[in-house]
């Protein structure tokens, strides 16, 4: 056992990077669910974003364009879900599952020519002298731009939901769509926008894996991250800051357990391997003891005639 092999600064820096795909996807899904829609297609939108972002980044040589393409790709795919659930009033659970299967299929089709290709690297944000500060510099000021975008999005979603009229309307639609409709809000339109926002963020989360975290394209490379993001939204009781906490906790313990294994710590590996799931769930369940409930209309179809 050699704990000195673990560099805590690198560990924290790595956890922030590891948590970002989950964070992006979960933040998007949070907005969707606060609008009263349950989209189980996060995994499908992520993997579609992963290949859209990857292929466009490779073709244009610009990772930034890649991320924009990933957001567009995820949003376009989510439009399919919006069409099924908001226009034709199909079951949301079934449509979401179908979206995941469809996304996995279409991404492997789109990705045929991109196996083994190396994507352009996204440079880290240049903070100048800030990144020279010992300890804090490497932890806070030495990351790719998307990681900061993820953090800003969490803050933005929180602020919008809490302080703005738009956020209030969105929450009203999610809590009671009949009442919101009676007040004259366009329930379906608001929900479609929320679904697209969720799709865009899931797409960016996927592209973060294919462009920054791994970086390569492999079929099925999101390997279940979308499901973790979905679970995280529920355990975080639909609150943005708790999503951030959950994502960092999950990413952090995942990294920590890998490091502990590498250092040969005498904790049985199977406990280490399950620790990210267990600890994240326990912490978030304890936090959600404050009786925060799911949005009232979550998962229910809405039609103006009802």
């Amino acid at each position, binding site marked *: 056992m050699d704990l000195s*092999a*673990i*560099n805590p600064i*690198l560990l924290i820096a*790595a956890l922030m990077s*590891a948590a970002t*795909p989950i964070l992006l996807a979960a933040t998007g899904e949070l907005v969707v669910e606060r609008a009263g829609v349950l989209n189980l297609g996060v995994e499908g939108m992520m993997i579609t974003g992963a290949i859209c972002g990857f292929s466009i980044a490779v073709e244009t040589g610009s990772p930034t364009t890649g991320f924009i393409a990933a957001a567009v790709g995820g949003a376009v795919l989510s439009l399919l879900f919006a069409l099924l659930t908001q226009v034709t009033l199909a079951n949301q659970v079934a449509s979401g599952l179908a979206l995941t*299967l*469809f996304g*996995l*299929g*279409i991404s*492997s*089709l789109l*990705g*045929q020519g991109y*196996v*083994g*290709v*190396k994507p352009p690297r996204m440079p880290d944000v240049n903070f100048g002298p800030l990144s020279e500060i010992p300890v804090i510099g490497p932890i806070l000021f030495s990351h790719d731009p998307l990681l900061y975008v993820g953090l800003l999005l969490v803050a933005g979603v929180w602020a919008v939901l809490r302080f703005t009229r738009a956020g209030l309307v969105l929450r009203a639609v999610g809590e009671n769509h009949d009442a919101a409709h009676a007040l004259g809000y366009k329930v379906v339109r608001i929900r479609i926008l929320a679904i697209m926002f969720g799709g865009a963020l899931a797409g960016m989360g996927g592209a973060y*894996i294919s462009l920054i*975290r*791994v*970086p*390569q394209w*492999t*079929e*099925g*490379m*999101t*390997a*279940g*991250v979308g499901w973790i993001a979905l679970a995280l939204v529920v355990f975080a009781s639909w609150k943005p800051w708790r999503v951030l906490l959950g994502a960092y906790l999950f990413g952090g313990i*995942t*990294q920590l357990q*890998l*490091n502990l*294994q*590498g*250092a*040969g710590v*005498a904790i*049985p*590996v*199977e406990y280490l*391997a399950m620790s990210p799931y267990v600890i994240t769930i326990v912490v978030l369940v304890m936090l959600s003891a404050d009786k925060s409930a799911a949005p009232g209309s979550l998962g229910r179809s809405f039609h103006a005639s009802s």
Partner: protein
Amino acid sequence: MKLTTLFAGAAVALGLATVAVADGHEKTKVGFVYVGPIGDGGWTYEHDKGRLMVEKELGDAVETVYVENVAEGPDSERVMTQMALDGADLIFTTSFGYMDPTINIAAKFPDVKFEHATGYKRADNVSTYSARFYEGRAIQGHIAGKMTKSNIVGYIGSFPIPEVIRGINSAYIHASKVNPDVEFKIIWVYTWFDPAKEADAAKTLIEQGADVVLQHTDSTAPQAAAQEAGNVVTFGQASDMAQYAPFPRVSSIIDEWGPYYVARTKAVMDGTWESMDTWDGIGAGMVGIGEISDAVPADVKEEALALKAAIADGSYHAFTGPINKQDGSAWLADGETADDGTLAGMNFYVEGIQGDIPQ
């Protein structure tokens, strides 16, 4: 099922209908159950290459079907049942975790032949087959021991099953033989295929000082992580992974399933199929060693090739004594070689490896 699979299935079904009408003769149907996607660039990719070889060699006489991304455990029983009900004559289940499901389903379909990769449970209609990957690991270990400057070799383990443990032991024995100071850092990721997790494990090992990373997982993600780090040596796993050659990937273990799949399919067609256990290595061509790139010094490359030749012609066994177990107790005496039974159930580290095997 994926869109591409659907299309492929539809195309095959259409072809089948035409032929069946044409000569009234039914094709031999061969099913494959895959643990990952066929585009993983590693394990499943090579099995699918074997499937394509069956199609190519036997042409119209066979029809192949496959299902990707089948979770190990109960879900795989559903897939196998469906294949058997759809008229498969022979089903290859290509991951260790399909072992009990294969035995269960085989009992329900006595007329269907099953072939389970890397397992040890057989029945009248269940054969097992595997490759002696540990022979390739010996060569990797040799190169790793020579190439490491930090004397730390990282190893990404999937599941603590005998196949993986054999690989770790074989690599360690041969690395420490040429470099007594070498230390193995082993991380278990508990998955065969999860590129993000594999990349994280590789990065962790690199951050902890490893400058050679061996992987026993299926994707090329660790290769990408090593490429980013810049000065880390890797080896292709299951497939050549030549897109990362000549550096970081300096060589590889390649699984060559095609000839075996063709032979076994033919055996079903001839009615000569019998339950048996096949375990072939470099000599029989089931394990290939990918080209050793120029990033490896010429003398090391020569030694590695000599080692490969000695293993291939049987003059050298990768587990040749004296070898002690991790606890220091004697396992193999001087010159003694390991028997297949012990190797097949290997559940201990050899002397010198740190840490415990998860139970």
